[in-house]
């Protein structure tokens, strides 16, 4: 099995992977020609946005930190951009980067004190932070209209779906490219080193605190970007999109897809968002479906959905072996 994996991964590295990605982008680019339903375009656009969010979440986890405030940072980006463009009349093209930067700055500010927390302490304290920071929306009710929902946010590209579809397809591809490079250069290696053993990492001179902060800064920037663009696409914001439950869903997308690989969160997001839409007629029974997916993955696929091909492969091999044995005897 090991040999097989190695061959496969070598082949992947050379040609298959880029080809697959290019093919995927071509197919996705052609999709609006086939799908005329604005509803389905909407679903795809949301998936693109959430892919940025979950992949940026995973960046932070590669450093061994498990943040449970990621949707709140998405909210920081979204509300910053929405409120500034609405109140000051700035163009979204300017406020979107501003929203992303706001998320990053707040991320950096908390990352320093949080760098002394480990494991579940980090997770739980960041969870409290996420809930608390969201309460600030209610304090500034005048601008955020947090209870009723913020409306009247300027559109980024008008009211039709197709331009957004291409915009987000491009943006998400760029973000993924940027984050991919981040993970697979020495910076990412250092983050993974810290996650595996922070003692060894610091004994070879890696500044643990600094790299943990870098991971958070990058993760928060990209999720802030996702939030800010979402604000000017959806043009209505509700705080429930960014609360604890929303954070937990982001985490679920990543875990169900598979935290161990770059592709995991992408696959997890796509599957967990598309499947409920496919079975929309089931209405209030849909959550059972989602729960079913969660339970199937957690019990049968320890590596998440990305581990499925290998699982199937090893299952086939085992079956073949069993057959061979019965034939022999």
């Amino acid at each position, binding site marked *: 099995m090991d040999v097989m994996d190695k061959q496969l991964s070598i082949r992947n590295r050379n040609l298959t992977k880029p080809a697959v990605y290019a093919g995927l982008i071509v197919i996705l680019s052609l999709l609006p020609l086939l799908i005329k339903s604005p509803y389905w375009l909407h679903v795809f656009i949301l998936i693109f946005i959430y892919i940025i969010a979950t992949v940026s979440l995973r960046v932070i986890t590669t450093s061994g930190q*498990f943040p449970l405030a990621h949707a709140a940072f998405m909210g920081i980006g979204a509300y910053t951009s929405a409120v500034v463009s609405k109140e000051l009349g700035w163009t979204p093209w300017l406020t979107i980067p501003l929203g992303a930067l706001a998320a990053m700055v707040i991320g950096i500010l908390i990352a320093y*004190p*949080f760098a*002394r*927390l*480990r*494991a*579940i*302490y980090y*997770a*739980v*304290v960041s*969870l*409290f*932070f996420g*809930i*608390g*920071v969201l*309460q*600030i*929306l*209610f*304090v500034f*009710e005048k601008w955020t209209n*947090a209870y009723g929902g913020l409306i009247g946010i300027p559109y980024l590209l008008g009211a039709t779906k197709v331009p957004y579809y291409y915009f987000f397809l491009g943006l998400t591809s760029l973000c993924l490219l940027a984050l991919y490079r981040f993970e697979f250069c020495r910076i990412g290696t250092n983050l993974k080193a810290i996650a595996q053993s922070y003692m060894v990492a610091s004994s070879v001179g890696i500044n643990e605190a600094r790299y943990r902060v870098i991971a958070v800064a990058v993760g928060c920037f990209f999720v802030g970007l996702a939030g800010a663009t979402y604000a000017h696409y959806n043009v209505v914001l509700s705080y429930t999109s960014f609360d*604890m*439950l929303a954070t*937990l869903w982001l*985490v*679920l997308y990543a*875990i*169900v897809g598979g*935290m161990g690989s770059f592709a995991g969160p992408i696959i997890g997001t796509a599957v967990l968002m598309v499947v409920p839409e496919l079975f929309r007629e089931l209405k*209030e*029974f849909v*959550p*059972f479906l*989602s*729960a079913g997916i*969660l*339970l199937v*993955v*957690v*019990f049968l696929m*320890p590596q998440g959905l990305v581990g499925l091909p290998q699982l199937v492969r090893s299952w086939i091999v085992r079956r073949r072996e069993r057959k061979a044995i019965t034939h022999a005897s």
Partner: protein
Amino acid sequence: MELAVISLVNTLVLASMYILVALGFALLFSIMGILNFAHGAVYMIGGYICYGFAVQLGINLWLSLLLAVLIVASFGLFLEKFCFRPFSGNFDRTIVVCIGVILILETTVNLLVGYNVWSIPEFASGIIRIGAIHLSAERLITFIIGGALLLIMVWVINGTRTGQQMQAVSQDPEGAALQGISIHRVSALACFTACGLAAVAGSLMGAYLSLTPFMGSQMLVKALQLVILGGLGSIGGIFFAGLVVGAIDATLPLFISGAASQAIAFGIIVVLLLFRPQGFFGRKSG
């Protein structure tokens, strides 16, 4: 004066309910290494089951409470065996399992009774007068039941063989197994108790306030606050943190508008934890 007494009573009521839920949550964490994110949902269905028996089926209220507790506690046994034991100590996968459980419970509630706000009838009615002070009997009974259960729990954990075995497993599972203690039995018992306590709190809170689908996640956050603030593994810490959080929740809104008080409450907690990551009474480790 009156304000002070009211906020004191409210503090005690809230604190006793928070502690009931948090104690169970802490038991599961220290014995199985499970952060049970579904504990809030378990608390919620406790309330809804009690409501179902008492209002929809018209059964005696106290009997309904008892039935709700038994059903939810048995559900705890199921959770232990099929959802927690396979993933003990694995943070990622327990989150997934717990959210699966939350989804199933919440959706079931939605299908059966809908997402409207309901209320369980009062367990006691009327006003009790002590001098110049007026207290609702409902609050008093909630506090008395909560307080009594907590006292019983403290006695069980510290004074009985079973409780000592629970502590042993939480301090050194391998050491405990070598003394012939069955870790599975202790885990199952902890889960049974934890879910039962949550159901009591859910039913009482459903009468004291009301039943909403959000009560679960709100209580989950409280339980997390208590357990982390008190210090993992410290029962005294949970009680202390319960009073602190209860006081903040009962008192701050009297002075500052709701949202700001919430933000400040979380701010206080985050800052406390940054200075003392092991909580008030935490044993120094990790």
